[in-house]
């Protein structure tokens, strides 16, 4: 591989995420690095501050259940059609994790501020909600541009330590194609480092093909890449494969109890080795 990104194995990629990292992950169907997340569980990462951009499902639930997460910051964690996220719910109810409740556009705006090197982002709405009341890091100021009284919410920029996602395609220069998954571009721009898994690495230059350029994250943002065919499974990957509903349903049912989750984890994560 030419360019600044290095091509490494899946386990080596997981090694690059230290305990306590502020780790940004995208919502389901945007390219969730499930294979890398299983590698993270196997390496027993601890105390992650998991930033869901702006929500998460099975990935957050599994990492929480496996004891990898200290704080989860999110618009929501849910298994959608398969019901509530059982490990998230349990951990929130017992206080085993800290839930930093946010609202989806606040997560985007705070990352986009970081993307632009802005110290903070204003956001309309939110004021008067309990979401706002419980966020000591958010402030309400008078809109400096308004004549009359006009309170507006101010969010500090969020700069994740690491952005982690799975994409359909990378090229040999380390550029990663994410198509119209703009949230992944924002994550990569905002984060100090980006780790990506991809379905395949092609011997082309994505930056030079104008059909791909708009949906390509430059290699300059990508610190390391790992090839992981099916790396989003059992979640789906746009344009490549659909979600495995059977696997999701089985997870949702197993994870309803602590024991059920542990059995699921033993079988699907801890005893398994990823093809990488």
């Amino acid at each position, binding site marked *: 591989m030419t360019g600044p990104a290095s091509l490494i194995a899946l386990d080596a990629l997981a090694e690059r995420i230290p305990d306590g990292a502020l780790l940004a992950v995208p919502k389901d169907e945007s390219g969730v690095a499930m294979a890398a997340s299983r590698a993270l569980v196997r390496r027993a990462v601890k105390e992650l501050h998991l930033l869901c951009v702006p929500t998460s499902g099975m990935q957050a639930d599994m990492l929480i259940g496996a004891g990898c997460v200290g704080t989860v910051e999110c618009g929501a964690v849910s298994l959608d059609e398969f019901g509530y996220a059982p490990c998230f*719910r349990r951990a929130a*109810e017992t206080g085993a994790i800290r*839930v930093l*409740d946010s*609202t989806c556009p606040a997560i985007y705006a705070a990352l986009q501020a970081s993307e632009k090197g802005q110290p903070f982002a204003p956001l309309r709405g939110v004021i008067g*909600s309990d979401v706002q009341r419980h966020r000591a890091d958010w402030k309400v100021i008078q809109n400096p541009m308004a004549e009359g009284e006009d309170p507006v919410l101010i969010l500090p920029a969020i700069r994740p330590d690491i952005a982690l996602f799975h994409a359909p395609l990378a090229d040999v220069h380390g550029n990663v194609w994410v198509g119209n998954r703009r949230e992944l571009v924002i994550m990569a721009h905002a984060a100090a480092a980006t780790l990506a898994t991809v379905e395949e690495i092609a011997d082309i230059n994505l930056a030079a093909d104008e059909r791909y350029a708009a949906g390509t994250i430059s290699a300059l943002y990508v610190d390391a890449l790992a090839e992981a065919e099916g790396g989003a499974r059992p979640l789906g990957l746009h344009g490549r494969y659909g979600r495995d509903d059977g696997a999701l349903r089985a997870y949702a049912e197993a994870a309803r109890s602590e024991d059920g989750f542990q059995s699921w984890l033993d079988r699907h994560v801890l005893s398994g080795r990823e093809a990488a």
Partner: protein
Amino acid sequence: MAGISRDAFLIAALARLIGDARSVAVGAGSPIPAAAALLAEEASGGRVRPMILGSSLCGPFNDNGPELFDRAGQGRIDVFFLGGGQIDGAGNINLVGTGPYPKPETRFPGSFGSAYLYFMVPRVILFREEHSRRVLVPKVDFISAPGASDVPLERRGGPDALLTGKALFRFSGARRRFGLESVHPGATMDEVRAGCGFEFDCPDAAPETPAPPVEWLALMNGPVRRRVAEVYPAFAETRLGA
């Protein structure tokens, strides 16, 4: 609701609420609102433009995630749908959990974009099929998004209506409370009252929520079912089946 499914009835009721809006957005995990938005488009001959999260054809959100919120911020979305683990009589919704925060008795998924969209979208239609005192509470335990705000807060929108499995309510911004608009066929006024933990303005006799016209049933069984399957295949197959 003779002859039509409960789902079809609710889809039609939501589609009617969309009214003369031009742009209707539907968030994640919302098959019935998605079908309603598509029905409104089909029934209006394309005047109503649905934007459905997760759809590439009925977006199109070329920026994907942030674009729904950005469009709302730009004033380009007229109607949005929200649910609620709890909804109270002042239009507050709770998507976070019951009991004390941050260690709730029952944790819900989270507020999603509600704390923002409830302010930015002129008309938000609340939809929650379960009509019970567990959901329709006197006061929510956690305000994910407030039903009303005191001036001088800039606020372009808020709750417009609340559709449950038994009734349709309209929200009055001036009175900051719901008023009963109609009761669904098969439900009674007593059931509506018994299942509702908050006070609402109530006429002596409420009309019946109208059933969808036959043309709408054809649309639901045809193009709506076909199109909603892009995002909600299981729903389209099992619950909008002919």
